[in-house]
């Protein structure tokens, strides 16, 4: 089965030129004036990076798992707890007003970051996982019925599989899976074939965490909408690497996690089209989501507050706002260009290592170098790299169906962030060669 390629002009090497990135529709907003990207200066913003582990300078290449935090984020958290800590949306006192302003200010930052039409379309969650669960429970239970179908893809993270499986089990609906090819690209012909009038929703990742594949998301969404299906996009691995425009891609729901974009853990975002959010029942009941409560009847607030029951992770929201400010200042176009250069350089370097096999070789990739090394188990690779100061992830990356698709138990995965350098890729390559020495 041939993959229909979303961007036919894209038969090119991984080292995409800036011009190519600019012409990729629906994915990237580049600000060419930000081309001067000073990685040395950026590294100084991340104090954690200057430490040694096992006596070696830390080379942090586990960014797809979580990213490090810049001083700006640490200071925002510290300042909130030192100076404005207070509960939001209720106090008549100054601190509460300040906290509310900072909290709602972050919502505006997220709106701008995703280019959403309305700040009321931005919901704060615990992370991407909770965002998917919220949609599967609140929207799904109302809209998915027995005999309906839910589509996911073979490259999804478990968090974009399991909530849908749970929903389908409960409702007697069927979960269907869009296959991928050997390069780790989605088979759009198969997607077309699987979409039907029974398809209620397609849950698809924008960037694969295990393979690095960048999906032609706008085209995918158009295909699903043509059949009347809604689309939830898992943007956890996309937002740190490419500019996202939810209006341009026209997704119905979009989720991401703060900690993968240089923000705190425990905070995430769900974007939803306002009309859909308005029709959805609440996800959880509690304080802050109600307009009025009596024992007979409770009236709910309108979105987004309808979906933010209880005292939220205020500090996390404020920290996330600071992280998005930081990323925006660096410029997502410049970050993308820098990381694409590293990806191309890393790909060349790694392919020069005997026995190394890259898993995930899509023409459109972001941030991930997933590999196997002969018969050596990725866990052993991870240990030997760690002792040389190189932090990577070894395992199934919460994407067991991907591992099964490639008939491997696990991969070693180096994943990139905006602070990584070519020198660090060199250290990685050298460390991998050391693995070969140990295992003779």
């Amino acid at each position, binding site marked *: 089965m041939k993959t229909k390629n979303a961007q036919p002009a894209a038969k090119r090497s991984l080292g995409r030129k800036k011009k190519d990135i600019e012409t990729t529709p629906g994915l990237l907003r580049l600000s060419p004036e930000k081309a001067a990207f000073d990685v040395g200066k950026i590294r100084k913003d991340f104090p954690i990076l200057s430490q040694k582990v096992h006596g070696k300078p830390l080379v942090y290449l586990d960014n797809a798992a979580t990213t490090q935090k810049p001083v700006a984020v640490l200071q925002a958290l510290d300042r909130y707890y030192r100076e404005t800590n207070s509960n939001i949306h209720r106090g008549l006192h100054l601190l509460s007003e300040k906290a509310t302003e900072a909290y709602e200010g972050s919502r505006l930052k997220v709106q701008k970051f995703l280019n959403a039409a309305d700040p009321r379309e931005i919901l704060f969650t615990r992370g991407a996982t909770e965002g998917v669960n919220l949609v599967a429970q609140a929207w799904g239970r109302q809209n998915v019925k027995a005999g309906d179908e839910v589509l996911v893809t073979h490259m999804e993270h478990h968090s974009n599989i399991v909530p849908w499986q749970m929903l389908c089990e409960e409702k007697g609906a069927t979960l269907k899976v869009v296959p991928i090819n050997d390069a780790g690209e989605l088979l759009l012909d198969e997607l077309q074939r699987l979409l039907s009038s029974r398809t209620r929703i397609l849950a698809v990742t924008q960037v694969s965490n295990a393979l690095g594949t960048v999906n032609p998301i706008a085209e995918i969404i158009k295909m699903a909408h043509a059949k009347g299906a809604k689309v939830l996009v898992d943007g956890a691995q996309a937002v740190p690497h490419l500019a996202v425009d939810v209006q341009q891609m026209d997704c119905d729901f979009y989720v991401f996690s703060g900690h993968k974009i240089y923000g705190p853990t425990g905070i995430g975002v769900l974007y939803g089209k306002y009309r859909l959010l308005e029709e959805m029942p609440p996800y959880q009941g509690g304080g802050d989501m109600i307009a009025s409560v009596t024992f007979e009847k409770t009236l709910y607030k309108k979105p987004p507050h309808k979906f933010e029951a209880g005292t939220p992770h205020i500090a996390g929201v404020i920290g996330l706002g600071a992280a998005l400010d930081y990323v925006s200042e660096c410029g997502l176009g410049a970050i993308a260009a820098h990381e694409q250069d590293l990806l191309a350089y890393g790909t060349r370097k790694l392919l020069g290592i005997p026995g190394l096999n890259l898993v995930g070789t899509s023409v459109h990739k972001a941030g991930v170098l997933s590999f196997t090394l002969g018969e*050596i*188990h*990725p*866990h*052993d690779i*991870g*240990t*030997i790299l*760690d*002792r040389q100061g190189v932090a990577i992830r*070894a*395992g*199934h990356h919460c994407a*067991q169906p991907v*591992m099964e698709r490639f008939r491997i*138990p*696990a991969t070693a995965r180096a994943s990139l962030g905006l602070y990584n350098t070519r020198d660090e890729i060199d250290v990685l390559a050298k460390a991998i060669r*050391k693995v070969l*020495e*140990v*295992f*003779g």
Partner: protein
Amino acid sequence: MSEFSDLYQDLILDHQKNPRNFGDLPGANHHADGFNPLCGDKISLDLKLSAQGLIEDVKFKGSGCAISKASASLMTVALKGKRTEDAEKMFHQFHDMVMGKEGVPAAELGKLKVFEGVRDYPARVKCASLAWHTLEAALHDHKDVVSTDDGVQP
């Protein structure tokens, strides 16, 4: 390779490359499966126990990292001909050793002492102990797959 020889000793590398007692065991009367969800290590263990509680034969199958494979291989070698209560004792001693407990008579473990270095690699303790947890399950005929991720103890 000296900086890694505390963990990846020659004996371990030899057993992971050429695992002993690898395969099916016809006539086995005890069996258990073990799984390490963290890294996907899988082991399937067959035991043939005599009526007197002697481990007459033992074989394993599975896939995993060097540590888990070598540990399973060396375990099968150590178990053959042992009484089940001695096997249990070895399990506890081995577990204590890789957990870095003080005062473990590691010398009693013979070749298994080669895994002493694992204690300095906390992330790998589960790899080394998976086979032993699976043995424990096989001896007690536990039907559920043993998972190193279910408890707080590796």
